[in-house]
C-alpha cells in the first residue's frame, strides 16, 4: 500500500472578487521510501499541493475537495489537534527560503530541538539538545555549532539545519519545496547528495518540488508533471526523459540544457503559464501547445495509463502510447505556428478570431502579472494579488 495517496485534491484561494482554484483535482501516490519529483513552472500549484498535504495553506486558502490518505488514514478528516501531532512526526517539510525560516534570535540547536520537545512527551531539554547534536552530525555540521545563531551560517549550512529540523522526529515522508533553488551549484550538489543519502539510510519517502527537471532526474525515481493546477503526466524519470508523452513534459524536458548532447539553445516553452483565475478551456496547455487540436480546446483529456506507472492526460497521444507527430494532426492555427508548420487559412494571425483569442475570454491566459509572479507559496496563485 502506498504511504501517501492524494486523491482528487482541490485547493481554492479566496481573492478579491472571487476564488481561484490553484490545484484542480490532482491525484498521485508516493510509496514508502520512494523519491518523487513534483515538477512544473511557477504557479502550476506544486507548492500549493505541498502546503495542502501538510495543511499549512495560508489564511485565504482552503481544501475544496479530495482526500489525502497517509498510511491508510484520511488526513483531511482529522481535526486540527490530531493532525498537528502527525505533522513533523509523520511528515515534515523543508521550505525554499532557509534564510527566513529560521528565527534569527534563537540558537540553531534550540530550533532543531524544539520539535522534539514539542512532539515527544517525556523528553528532557538535555536529551533533546543531545539529539539535536546527533542530527547536526547527520546533516554534516559539527555538533559544536549548535550554540550559534542563524546569521553565523551560510545559505547551504542553513539549509542543512532545516533538513536536520525536518528529520528531528523521524518522519516517514519529507517534502522538499525547492530546497536547493537559491543555492550555488556546488552547495546544491552537496544538499541533494545529503538528501539522497539520508533517504537511503533512513528509508524516507521524499517529495521533491522543483521547476528544474534535471534536479529531479538526478534524485528521484518518479516524477509528476503539473501544469496549471492539474497533473499532465506522471512516470518514472527514465521514461519521462526517454519518451515523454505529454507535449508539455517534452517541452519542459527540452528546456534543460544538456551538456552531454549537442550544443544548441533549448527550445523552451513559448508564452507564460496561464492565470488560474480564468484558465483556458479544455486542456489548459492548448494555447502554448504545438500539438493542440480543436478537441483540446473543447474538452479536458482523460488520463490514460501506459505501462505500470506511466500516466498521461493528452489528446495527442495515440492508443499505443505514442505522442503523435504534429504533422499528422488537425492542428489549430496557434499550434501550427508553434510547430513551425507556418500558417494557413484565416485564423492564423493575431488579427482574426484565432483559436487562442476565441477559446474563452482568457483563453491564452498569459495574463501579465500572473504566472511566474514570484517564488514560494504566493507564486502558486497567479492573479491573487489585489
Amino acid at each position, binding site marked *: 500500500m502506498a504511504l501517501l495517496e492524494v486523491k482528487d485534491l482541490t485547493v481554492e484561494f479566496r481573492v478579491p472578487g472571487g476564488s481561484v482554484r490553484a490545484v484542480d483535482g490532482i491525484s498521485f501516490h508516493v510509496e514508502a521510501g520512494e523519491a518523487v519529483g513534483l515538477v512544473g513552472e511557477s504557479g502550476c500549484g506544486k507548492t500549493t499541493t505541498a502546503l495542502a498535504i501538510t495543511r499549512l495553506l495560508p489564511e485565504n486558502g482552503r481544501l475544496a475537495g479530495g482526500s489525502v490518505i497517509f498510511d491508510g488514514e484520511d488526513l483531511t478528516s482529522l481535526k486540527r489537534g490530531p493532525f498537528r501531532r502527525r505533522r513533523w512526526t509523520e511528515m515534515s517539510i523543508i521550505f525554499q527560503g532557509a534564510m527566513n525560516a529560521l528565527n534569527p534570535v534563537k540558537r540553531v540547536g534550540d530550533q532543531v530541538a524544539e520539535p522534539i520537545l514539542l512532539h515527544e512527551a517525556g523528553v528532557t531539554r538535555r536529551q533533546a539538545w543531545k539529539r539535536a547534536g546527533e542530527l547536526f552530525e547527520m546533516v554534516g555540521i559539527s555538533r559544536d555549532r549548535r550554540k550559534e545563531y542563524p546569521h553565523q551560517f551560510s545559505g547551504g549550512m542553513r539549509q542543512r539545519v532545516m533538513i536536520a529540523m525536518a528529520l528531528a522526529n523521524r518522519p516517514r515522508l519529507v517534502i522538499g519545496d525547492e530546497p536547493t533553488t537559491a543555492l550555488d551549484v556546488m552547495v546544491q550538489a552537496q544538499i541533494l547528495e545529503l538528501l539522497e543519502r539520508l533517504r537511503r539510510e533512513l528509508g524516507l519517502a521524499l517529495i521533491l518540488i522543483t521547476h528544474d527537471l534535471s534536479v529531479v532526474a538526478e534524485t528521484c525515481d518518479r516524477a509528476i508533471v503539473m501544469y496549471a493546477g492539474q497533473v499532465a503526466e506522471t512516470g518514472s524519470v527514465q521514461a519521462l526523459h526517454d519518451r515523454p508523452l505529454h507535449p508539455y513534459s517534452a517541452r519542459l524536458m527540452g528546456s534543460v540544457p544538456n551538456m552531454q548532447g549537442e550544443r544548441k539553445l533549448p527550445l523552451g516553452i*513559448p508564452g*507564460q503559464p496561464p492565470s488560474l483565475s480564468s484558465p483556458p478551456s479544455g486542456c489548459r496547455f492548448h494555447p*502554448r501547445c504545438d500539438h493542440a487540436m480543436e478537441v483540446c480546446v473543447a474538452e479536458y483529456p482523460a488520463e490514460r495509463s501506459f505501462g505500470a506507472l506511466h500516466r498521461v492526460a493528452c489528446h495527442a497521444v495515440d492508443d499505443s502510447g505514442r505522442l503523435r507527430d504534429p504533422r499528422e494532426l488537425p492542428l489549430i492555427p*496557434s499550434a501550427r*505556428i508553434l510547430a513551425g508548420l507556418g500558417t494557413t487559412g484565416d485564423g492564423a494571425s*493575431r*488579427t482574426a478570431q484565432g483559436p487562442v*483569442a476565441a477559446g474563452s475570454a*482568457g483563453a*491564452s491566459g498569459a495574463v501579465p502579472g500572473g504566472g511566474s509572479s514570484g517564488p514560494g507559496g504566493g507564486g502558486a496563485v497567479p492573479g491573487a494579488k489585489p
Partner: protein
Amino acid sequence: MTVGRIPQPLSRFHRGYASLRLLVSNRQALVGIVILAAFVLIAVVGPFVVGPIEKPGTPGTTPLLNPSATHLFGTDQAGRDLVKLNVVGAQVSLIVGVVASVLTMLIGTAVGIVAGFLGGRWDNWLMRITDFFYVLPTLVLAVVLAAILGPNLLNVIVVIGMTSWPATARIIRSQTLSIRERMFVDRARAYGASNRRIMTRQILPNVFGLVMANTTLTIATSIFYETTLSFLGVGPHETYSWGRILEESFNAGALTLGKWAWFVPPGLSVVLVVLAFTLIGAGFDEILDPRLRLRGGPHGVTELAMAELEATLEPRA
C-alpha cells in the same frame, strides 16, 4: 483589427483624474474631503457673505451678547460678531496650516533625501542638525521665537515650519535609505544619470506618497500649533484665528460665564479640520501605489498574451 482593443495610452491628466477618483472612492478620504471642502468654502466665500469685522467700540455693538438671530454665536467682549471672527479665523488657520506644512515638507524632504541618498559626510552633518532641532522642546522654542520675531502671521508660519521639519526629514531619510538599495537606482546610475537626477526622478516619486501622507498630517499639527501659540498669546496679532478667539474667550472667562457659543465653534472647527486632514492623509497612503491605480482592464490581455507567444517564436533550430 484587434489592435483597436489595445488600451489607449493614459495621459497624465487621466492618471491624475484616476487617482482623484480613487481618493474619492476611499470612504475615509471622502469624509475628510467633504469636511475640508466645507471649511475651504467658508474661508474663501465666507468673508464676503458676513461682511467685515466691526472695529471695537463701533456704535451699535454690544459686548457679550448671547446667540440670537442677528448674532448666531453672540458677540465677544468688544462687541464683535463671533460668526465673523470664526469665518476670518478659518482663513487664517487654513493658510497657516497649509503654508507652514509646505515649508516643513520642502525642508524635510530635501534634507531627508539628500542625507539618505548621498550618505556619508552629508548624512552625518544633516542628521546632526536635524537631531539638534528634533530634541529642542518645540513649543518652548516656538514661544521664544515668536516672542523674539514678533507675533505676526509670517513669523508664526516660519516658527512652525522651523520646528516641525526634523520629524519629516527623518521619515523621508529612512525611506530613502531603503529605496537607495533598490536595483533600479543602480540601473539609473549605470545609464549615466547624475545624483541630482536620481534624487529627483527615482527617489522623489517613490517617497512622494509618504510626503503627501505626511503633509496632510503636518497640516493638522500646524493648525494645532497655531491655535496653541495664539492661545498662549504669541500668535498672529494683526488678524483673528481660531486660537485667538479661544484665547480671548478664556481670558474673558467665557467658561464660567456659560458663553459656550464663544469657545465651542472655534474649538470644534480645529478638531474637524485636523480630523479631515488626517483622514485624507490616510487615504493618500493607500492610493499612491500604482498597483491600486487604474489598470489596463481585461481588454488587451489576450492580445498581449498572443504578442508574447509570437515574440518567443523564432525559426526552430
